[in-house]
């Protein structure tokens, strides 16, 4: 009943639309939390604020800085949202997926790493000390979260016995991976925040360096970067559903709705965590990542590997 199959080609076009809607929901929820902290009422204006802000940025003039490297800067800016949409291609909605790649999990990983290059190019290309520092910080952060992230993905692949996302969903028919891979799930959620440079992992765009990578970007460029960040966070939240939360499995409701409900719930959780934490300092997080997260996720992978070997009756 949980079998996921390749959808028709036109479903590829549906991915950016759905991902955009999910991203707008996330951004609107963030606005609601902000408005509550501000002591303002929750009105339609607050919910529509992300759209209104997008409109404002569309009308705003783009600016460029003396001696900036426009080729690299533009490439980086465009790549951020593109990478997010490409990463989301392998996420199944209900029992259909836009592209059921045989190496879907590695694909997601690779597309997420594209953000490294994109953000670095955008930061460097803007020819500003803040952009440079932002790009620099993001790479340091990447080196700290990437290995736990990869180990979390490897754990899922081990449990599923495959790199195909639909196989991971099928393997969770009886028991969701989140139940016996909790460490991998937490590591994945942390890296979801980190790879979309949001929440406690927003050093690359921190207010202490006046927006970092974003500092010099206005108008459409800024819109692409900010939207790209939300799309990436949404893609990661959506990806956690087939990887850990049993895909479309659930009672009563149709499968596609369950996928959406779970994705929205994970996204809501991530946005809420954002509002409850200060930015993690990079040197501390680097040490935490290497000394705590990597050993823990390795241990988790070991446990899962032993269980899988035991279940299949040894070699």
């Amino acid at each position, binding site marked *: 009943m949980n079998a996921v199959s390749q959808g028709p080609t036109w479903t590829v076009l549906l991915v950016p639309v759905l991902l955009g809607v999910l991203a707008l929901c996330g951004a609107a929820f963030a606005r609601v939390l902000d408005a509550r902290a501000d002591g303002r009422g929750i009105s339609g204006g607050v919910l529509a604020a992300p759209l209104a802000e997008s409109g404002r940025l569309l009308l705003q003039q783009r600016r460029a800085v003396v001696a900036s490297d426009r080729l690299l800067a533009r490439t980086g800016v465009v790549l951020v949202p593109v990478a997010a949409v490409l990463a989301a291609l392998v996420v199944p909605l209900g029992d259909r997926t836009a592209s059921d790649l045989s190496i879907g999990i590695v694909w997601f990983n690779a597309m997420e790493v594209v953000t490294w290059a994109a953000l670095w190019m955008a930061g460097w290309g803007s020819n500003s000390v803040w952009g440079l520092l932002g790009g620099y910080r993001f790479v340091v952060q990447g080196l700290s979260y990437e290995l736990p992230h990869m180990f979390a993905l490897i754990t899922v692949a081990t449990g599923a016995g495959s790199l195909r996302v639909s196989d991971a969903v099928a393997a969770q028919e009886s028991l969701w991976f989140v139940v016996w891979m909790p460490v991998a799930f937490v590591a994945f959620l942390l890296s979801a925040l980190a790879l979309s440079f949001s929440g406690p992992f927003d050093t690359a765009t921190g207010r*202490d360096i006046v927006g970092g990578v974003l500092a010099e970007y206005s108008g459409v460029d800024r819109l692409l970067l900010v939207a790209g960040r939300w799309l990436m966070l949404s893609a990661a939240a959506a990806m956690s559903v087939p990887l850990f939360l049993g895909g479309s499995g659930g009672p009563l409701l149709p499968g596609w709705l369950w996928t959406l409900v779970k994705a929205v719930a994970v996204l809501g959780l991530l946005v809420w965590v954002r509002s409850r934490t200060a930015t993690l300092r990079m040197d501390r997080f680097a040490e935490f990542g290497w000394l705590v997260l990597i050993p823990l996720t390795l241990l988790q992978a070991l446990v899962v590997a032993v269980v899988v070997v035991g279940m299949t009756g040894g070699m």
Partner: protein
Amino acid sequence: MDLSGWMRIQATPRPLLVTARGGGGIRVAAERVLRQRGWDLASTPAEADLLVVCGVPDDDALAAAVERVWSAFPAPRARASVHVETDVVSELDRARVRLDDVEWQRSDIAARTGAAETARAEEHTGEHDHTGHTTHSTTEPACGHHRSSDPGGGHSMGDHDMGGHDAHMMHGGDVAGLRMADRAPDRDGLALDQLHVSLGPVLPDWPAGLVVRVALQGDVVQSAEVEVIGEAHPDGSSWLGMPAAAAALDSMARLLSVCGWGTAMRSARRLRDELLTGAVDDAELGRFVGRLRRSRTLRWATDYVGRLDLPHSDLAGDATQRWRRWLDVVEGREAGHRRGDHAEVALERLPGLLEGQELAAARVIVASLDPDLDSVLPRDARDRVR
């Protein structure tokens, strides 16, 4: 009405606040109005469309910095100068109208294009190409030389050297009128390229009037020089009359912003304003303070940062101890004294504290000391403080 006009009106403006010394009270009033309207604060001119100057920039350096920031604003843009607290609402309203005034914006763009072109004809520096959007280059400040770091004030740094033989000879030189990085030994025993950046006077969540010139390697501060610009305003600002608890919350809000906790920063500002109007809910205030005290991520950001050995001083200890003391003041457990000598001690110790720190830690140090330069220093202080 056309579509772009409709979109323009739906959007809320993004103000960038600039505070002159003595403008603290005005800043608090402006922050209150902006918060109530839901106009989120920008941190860089690229993001903003509204420049709000709180207080009078009665100093050449600050006035020049404000002009530089203003010229870095993309169109459409508007500015408001608030000299008196009671003018906040009317000035903001006026600026908002101007922001939506298509005619005014059009003439502004035309004026800027003209000015930039004459400047370019005179200076004739660098090779910037005009391909595509001609309006782009008009947003650049005409002067090529400044390397201050007004938030996104533009090309804060010079061209890039390619690390070749030729490039080595260029170290420390100027390329296209822009200062290049030079080399100096660093804390890990590598002599790496160094950048000269000045923090302030226009920087979000930064003490009004403070300028810190730093040399950066990577994001490690190698050396720092402190300067205070602008005239002191010993009186005439409601800032002095602010209750200690509200002042402590104000400092806390900046620290939270620097530490990247936007939601808590908003709550701190709201509670500060409610304290000022006497409408604060004590239970909520208590919950808020408790949440900050329990926050591990906040402590992670401030523990061991900027340790000062000053017995019996409010500035003693690391940043965590300092902000915990503010929370004591907020809760009324401690009197709280923003005495004049605090700022002077802080300025004196600042360079030593900043050296060898990462930029993030440096920002936390400044925010945790939060020297109140508005009223404290005598008029000749600029020469005394080094």
